């Protein structure tokens, strides 16, 4: 960082560095940061090597036993599989639908605030409100979903009771709930794009589709990379809506890895094992993040 030479400023006192805010500015953040983030991360690593339990106050060191058990635990693998399935089912529409919404709203049709409101407001709702509403929509006998299907002459669907369907239902809820945030990111990006390229292409006689594909979408590339990365990381961490909506059922078909951690730790009281499983998950998150960084760097 260049220390700008300023001939008019008085010569610095001997030994005194350039003035600036001191450690005191950082301390009010650093103390809770170390206490409530760094320490738990470290303590979690330690716990994952013990048989720590909510029921027993005596704990002993068990080495890699928890990790060995986790890798041989079919529930870990199936819940990891569910997590990856959910991430695929939710991330793709969450990026694509958000992009379509933002392009449509940005195209300058009247009623901007109505569209923004419709798409963004679900994002403001607490998870419990969202799941209450969707539990009602997915209600097997009189819910809107099946009423619509039977009116149109289709068979009713076991939205939350059919193992093959339940994860799709959870993903649909999630898209409805959270697409607004990605929509806003895209809208903000669109509004800050320079219009000059678009105008130049229009003067050259490029049609609307052509300009969308060759001018606007390429300009949105960085935003798409950012939105996809944030979305995949967010989807991997799914827990709340699934826990409230299905408790992981039917028959474990929607249980994500973080719910398994919760079940093992707080229902089964095995905190040590729960820590080990959550660090296996953390390893997955880090691998995915690094893979994404590499992938998108290479493309640039």
């Amino acid at each position, binding site marked *: 960082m260049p220390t700008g030479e*300023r001939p008019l400023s008085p010569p610095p006192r001997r030994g005194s560095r350039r*003035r*600036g*805010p*001191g*450690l*005191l*500015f*950082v301390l*009010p*953040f*650093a103390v*809770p940061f170390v206490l409530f*983030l760094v320490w*738990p991360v470290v303590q*979690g690593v330690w716990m994952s090597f013990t048989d720590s339990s909510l029921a027993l106050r005596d704990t002993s060191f068990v080495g890699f036993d928890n990790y060995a058990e986790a890798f041989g635990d079919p529930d870990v693998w199936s819940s990891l599989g569910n997590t990856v399935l959910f991430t695929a089912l939710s991330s793709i529409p969450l990026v694509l639908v958000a992009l379509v*919404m933002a392009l449509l709203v*940005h*195209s*300058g049709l009247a009623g*901007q605030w109505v*569209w923004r409101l*419709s798409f963004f*407001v*679900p994002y403001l*709702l*607490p*998870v419990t*409100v969202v*799941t*209450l*509403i969707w539990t*009602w*929509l997915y*209600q097997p006998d*009189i819910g*809107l979903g099946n*009423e619509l299907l039977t*009116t149109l002459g289709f068979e009713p669907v076991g939205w939350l009771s059919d193992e093959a369907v339940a994860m799709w239902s959870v993903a649909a809820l999630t898209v409805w709930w959270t697409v607004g945030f990605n929509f806003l*990111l895209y809208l*903000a990006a669109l*509004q*800050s794009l320079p219009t000059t390229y678009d105008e130049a292409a*229009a003067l050259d006689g490029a049609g*609307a589709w052509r300009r*969308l594909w060759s001018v606007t979408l390429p300009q949105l590339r*960085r*935003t798409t990379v*950012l939105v996809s990365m944030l979305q995949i990381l967010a989807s*991997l*961490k799914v827990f*709340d809506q699934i826990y*409230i909506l299905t408790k992981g059922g039917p028959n474990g078909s929607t249980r994500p890895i973080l719910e398994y*951690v919760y079940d093992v*730790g707080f229902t089964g009281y095995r*905190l040590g094992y729960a820590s080990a499983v*959550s*660090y296996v*998950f953390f390893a997955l*998150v880090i691998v995915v993040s690094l893979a994404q960084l590499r992938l998108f760097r290479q493309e640039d």
Partner: protein
Amino acid sequence: MATTATAVRPRRRPSREPAGSPLLLGHGRLPRVLAGTALTVLAAVWLLPFLWAVATSLQSEQDVSKPGLSPFKGAFTLSAYEQILERGNVVLWAANSFLVAGLVTLITVAISTLAAYGFSRGTFRGRRGLMAVTVAAVMVPPQLLVVPLFEQMLMFNLVDTYAAMILPQVVAPMMVFILKRFFDGIPRELEDAARLDGASEVRVFRSVVLPLSRPIVAAVSIFVFIGAWNNFLWPFIVINDPGLMTLPVGLATVKDAFGIQYAQSMASALLAALPLVVVFLLFQRRIVSSVATTGLGGS
């Protein structure tokens, strides 16, 4: 990500709303009609769950359970709302949510702004190292901390207290990162001028830096508040006393107790949704532009 410093600079925008790009649709009539139809259909799909919930909440439980596609199967009644409010819990939980989310926002924004400024301009040793750890911490999923944090709360004897809900939530490395990037983009000359005039570091921060940072501080506050208001897992784990529960936790605990009383479920869902929706309606433009301000949107 690295080039956003300029996009983030505070600037005064003309007060009219950005009209979007009419070019995108060309001059023909057909694309406008198609785009308008697509928007209307999408918006209708997005609003339908709300409208269905509103209609359900305004009927009696008996009418709700009648089959049929009509949203209104019986007479209009406010009885579901009356029953919810009589029980009183939803109002209590909303008050808890406001208290918790408000304090979390206040503390988070205060300590994050100070820290971000310290990281951006500081002269102390270990600054880079600590900032590196903070940036790395963005990767840690908060759920990972739940088990050890709960142990910690047991140790401090804080389970079932407001402090247990609030304290761990005030650590927001992402917000420190966003604020630091913003401060990095402010020219130093203004501060140095104040320093030459003998202003203390606290005064430089308060009188020079903070006034320039209003949009980003507003943006960070809004996102911290929404996050804290909607946080479920942590308060759910650390609170058992129904009198201390926040809205998301309280509603989850009664969801099963409601059984199939859908009119009441929908009424409580809508009551719980109301506060933030009102806040959004009041600050709509600010919230939308705040995304751009954080530098997340543009690039």
